[in-house]
């Protein structure tokens, strides 16, 4: 038993120990500042390579899973179970001709292919991948995520403006409207959790869930749903993929891009989707905590579970219109998030923290909010519901007859 526990501990801390061992080895023949610098550099390299590696794998993963949701097999030809499909895709993308439209704004057009990736990698820095496995434990972690995450909009808007293309411009306008609208409920929903934690640091959010012995999804289910919905819109995925809108505006902001520059957008999009899942897993599902398995394994299990839910939504729901999208954000999500925040603040003052009583109180509070809003709004939804009138076949054929 002792041995098993030590083995688990070893596997759990393998990456942390590796980094510690490397720094002690370097300290033998390098001054302290050089070791610190090199270790930071190595961490950044690991994160970047992790991002680049995971996009390759996530791409195949998503295509296979969405295929299953749509009654077909995904790629299953190249390699075992089609797992090497990503290699073929990469070779194809890298060898394609790189075209810059003659009328495009060259500087902005070319710069825009690089800009969206930078924030995606920056976000990875504050995510705790396991116990002690965080590149930078900022005390303003969540604020940093919000600030850096909204930088991606600039890249997309640069791409849409620099392309000098009608579809791209429409897509850029949609992107800005959508991202600004959904940023608000996304942040507001997490503020409820931050009230319980009392800190913005991602590590302390995970620690707080250890103290409660419950993931925050139990205490704040409404906030989780709001956050996840807003996050889907934030990373431009179906059913909120209006900026791409293949059937309306061809491909949106990356319509003019080809080859490696197109691959950059793809990369940014997939890593963004991965990182919102990772953030949701950290804030609401308890992060790296879990029994038996090593902490980083739990983190990836939870993240990939949420990613499958993302794919599941994409495989199920049709795209919404831009007016429906904004209406949903401002009329449904923002009021819900505000109500949740207000009542959470009240309940958090009244009930004891880190106890079962508190958990039950928070759960009851969420139920009250959901039921209350449903009761207040239901007559109106009922009224606004589109009525489908079934006309009998004989009557309709008479009407259309000569």
């Amino acid at each position: 038993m002792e041995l098993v526990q030590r083995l688990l501990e070893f596997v759990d801390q393998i990456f942390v120990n590796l980094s510690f061992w490397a720094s002690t080895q370097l300290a033998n023949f390098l001054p302290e500042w050089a070791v610190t610098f090199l270790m930071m550099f190595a961490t950044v390299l690991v994160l970047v390579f992790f991002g680049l590696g995971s996009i390759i794998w996530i791409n195949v993963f998503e295509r296979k899973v969405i295929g299953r949701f749509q009654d077909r097999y995904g790629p299953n030809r190249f390699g075992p179970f089609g797992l090497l499909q990503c290699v073929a895709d990469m070779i194809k993308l890298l060898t394609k001709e790189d075209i810059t439209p003659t009328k495009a704004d060259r500087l902005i057009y070319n710069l825009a292919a690089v800009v969206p990736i930078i924030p995606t990698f920056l976000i990875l820095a504050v995510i705790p991948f396991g116990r002690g496995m965080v590149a930078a434990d900022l005390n303003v972690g969540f604020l940093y995520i919000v600030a850096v995450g909204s930088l991606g909009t600039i890249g997309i808007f640069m791409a849409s403006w620099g392309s000098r293309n009608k579809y791209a411009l429409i897509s850029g306008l949609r992107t800005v409207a959508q991202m600004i609208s959904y940023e608000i409920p996304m942040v507001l929903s997490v503020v409820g959790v931050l009230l319980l934690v009392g800190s913005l640091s991602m590590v302390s959010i995970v620690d707080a869930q250890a103290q409660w012995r419950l993931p925050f999804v139990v205490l704040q289910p409404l906030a989780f749903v709001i956050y996840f919905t807003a996050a889907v819109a934030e990373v431009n995925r179906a059913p909120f993929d209006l900026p791409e809108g293949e059937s309306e505006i061809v491909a949106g902001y990356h319509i003019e891009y080809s080859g490696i520059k197109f691959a950059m957008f793809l990369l940014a999009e997939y890593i963004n989707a991965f990182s919102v899942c990772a953030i949701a897993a950290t804030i609401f599902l308890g992060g790296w905590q879990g029994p038996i398995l090593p902490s980083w394994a739990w983190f990836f299990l939870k993240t990939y579970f949420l990613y499958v839910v993302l794919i599941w939504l994409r495989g199920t729901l049709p795209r919404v219109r831009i007016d429906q999208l904004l209406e949903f954000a401002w009329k449904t999500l923002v009021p819900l998030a505000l109500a949740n925040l207000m009542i959470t603040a009240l309940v958090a003052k009244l009930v004891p923290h880190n106890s079962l009583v508190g958990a039950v109180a928070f759960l009851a509070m969420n139920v009250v909010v959901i039921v209350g809003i449903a009761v207040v709004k239901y007559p109106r939804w009922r009224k606004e519901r589109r009525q489908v009138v079934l006309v009998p076949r004989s009557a309709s054929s008479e009407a259309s007859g000569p």
Partner: protein
Amino acid sequence: MIGLGILKGMSVTLRRFVDTYWGDLRQFPRRHAPGGVYERMGITERGAFTIQYPEERVPMFPRYRGPIMMLTDPEKDLTKCIACGLCERTCPTESIKVTRAPEKIKEQNVPESYEYDMNTCMFCGFCVQICPTGALGHSPILETGAYSKGDALILNLEQLLEMGHKYAPEGVWPVEEKEAVAS
């Protein structure tokens, strides 16, 4: 509107998701389910209905217009072609060249050579329609690809007759539906 429709839709896709894996387990060592493609496409069927192309093929339709083949009269054991040259004249892309043999066989004119160029053929089927003896038919060949547009795509008399023997042994085209099977 409260989101119940979303949950309902998601349950449908989840069932599809599970069903494809269940189908995989049932057909385990094979890549596709046994039975025809059309059986799998029914609305009551579960699981993926992707046609796993190189391993599994869709049967060609009886009137599928593939490369032409020459039919043989099984009673006379002789080609039905009388080398009249109508196919050569009617071909819009001049893909057919026929020459008549100097002597008749069994009191019938026969072609000495017949050259069919698949490079230029557009599979319009005029030759098959105009043939007075019904000597031409469309073979159900789907894969006509070649690495170069050379001799590989120019078929001669022997090859055309061989295709006729293979795909229409009765000497009639179109072949009955139950006999029209994949190549």
